[in-house]
């Protein structure tokens, strides 16, 4: 059974009260795309590496997720957004743990369309499932490649090398090399592999501990942290003109007078749609309120 032939809606299923068990033997791209980055409300980008965990399926290259500068500081990229659910802190802990770096030496960039992987929407408890597993695996891959580099440098086996949790690899004879030195000799523009050595949970240093949330300080001090705090050069403000309540519309709206009100730059009209654009937010609201004083009618 191909997933495309499944056209039952949630309502159909609830009405029928039945049990539907579906499985797919064919790796249709649509079925796979539903596995990565989608969450509620739509699939993420195309799957190119179906065997990798989470959003690595769509973005398998390590440097899409993690970069390490010559000073040994890591920058981690996630396509999931912090909404107060604490995900930026949780993902930061995951990255620090699997890199085995102190959390203070890991920076994390969230949901930046120019810099981070496109992980679709942030909802449906998918952030840890998709981004967390991708970052954990990518970080473990990066650590594995750094260990391999150290092993080559010292001409010893990789299994003999340990990390001290402070940004240094250590050989059994006490020789040490820091992450930055090794990273500067290494390209992370390579694909992750699935079967990668992971940190032993019994030796976790950062995961499983309660760290202060990274987003809270700005929220307590008026920092720019919500989309409402974004101010662009020459930014204007708009309000959509609607009736006074759901299911209503204005009749005979006096757009001419509204268009002459202070600060009003433009009235956008397209069929039954109208919006007011003004220099300041309050000027847009004042013009909207003026228009809403006119009579209204019930829409069918």
């Amino acid at each position, binding site marked *: 059974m191909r997933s495309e032939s499944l056209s039952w809606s949630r309502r159909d299923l609830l009405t029928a009260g039945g049990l539907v068990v579906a499985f797919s033997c064919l790796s249709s791209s649509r079925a796979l795309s539903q596995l990565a980055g989608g969450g509620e409300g739509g699939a993420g980008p195309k799957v190119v590496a179906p065997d990798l965990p989470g959003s690595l399926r769509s973005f398998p290259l390590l440097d899409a997720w993690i970069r390490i500068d010559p000073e040994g500081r890591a920058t981690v990229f996630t396509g999931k957004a912090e*909404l*107060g*659910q604490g995900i930026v802190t949780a993902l930061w802990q995951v990255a620090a743990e699997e890199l085995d770096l102190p959390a203070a030496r890991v920076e994390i960039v969230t949901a930046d369309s120019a810099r981070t992987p496109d992980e679709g929407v942030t909802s449906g408890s998918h952030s840890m499932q998709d981004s967390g597993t991708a970052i954990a695996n990518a970080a473990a891959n990066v650590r594995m490649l750094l260990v391999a580099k150290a092993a080559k440098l010292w001409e010893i086996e990789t299994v003999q090398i340990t990390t001290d949790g402070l940004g240094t690899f250590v050989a059994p004879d006490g020789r040490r090399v820091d992450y930055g030195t090794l990273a500067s000799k290494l390209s992370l523009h390579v694909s992750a592999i699935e079967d990668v050595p992971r940190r032993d949970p019994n030796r976790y240093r950062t995961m499983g501990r309660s760290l*202060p*949330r990274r*987003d*809270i*300080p*700005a*929220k*307590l*001090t*008026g*920092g*720019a*942290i*919500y989309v*409402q*705090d974004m*101010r662009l050069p020459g930014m204007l*403000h708009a309000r959509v003109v609607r009736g006074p309540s759901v299911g209503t519309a204005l009749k005979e709206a006096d757009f001419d007078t509204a268009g002459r009100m*202070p600060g009003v730059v433009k009235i956008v009209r397209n069929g039954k749609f109208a919006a007011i654009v003004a220099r*300041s*937010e*309050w*000027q847009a*609201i*004042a013009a909207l309120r003026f228009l809403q004083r006119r009579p209204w009618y019930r829409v069918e």
Partner: protein
Amino acid sequence: MTITLHVNGRDHTLEADPSTPLLYVLRGDLELNGAKYGCGLGQCGACTVQVDGRAVFSCLTPIAALEGRQIRTVEGLGTVDQPSRLQAAFLTEQAAQCGYCVAGMIMRAQALLDEKQHPTEADIRSHMDANLCRCGTHMRILRAIRRAAGLPSTEGF
């Protein structure tokens, strides 16, 4: 009209319609992010700031009423590096989920602490009644205020 508003210890002279609610001047003209638009009706408290020490809804207070008054927003309390006692208490208690209400919560609580150095639990609860947190962080917020007021945490209360 031209109006001078005294915000966080500084005078700001600006051009605005006298009916403009303070919130829009704080966010739009002065680019202060702390006070938030929530309901625009004085029903949620996200826009709360202090005027002459008292907690007011900035979404409902026209600037015409504010010349010569001392306006204080959360930016006037402290910074990330040097938070005020109350902000530090919110940080210690991690008293925010989405955090949209929290600047308003802090400013309402500050008004109480400015008026009463040692408020009781009942004082805190009745004073904070006007501000809502949709995420349900109220218990942490109350713990943060108790902490700043030097009251015992009263775990589980």
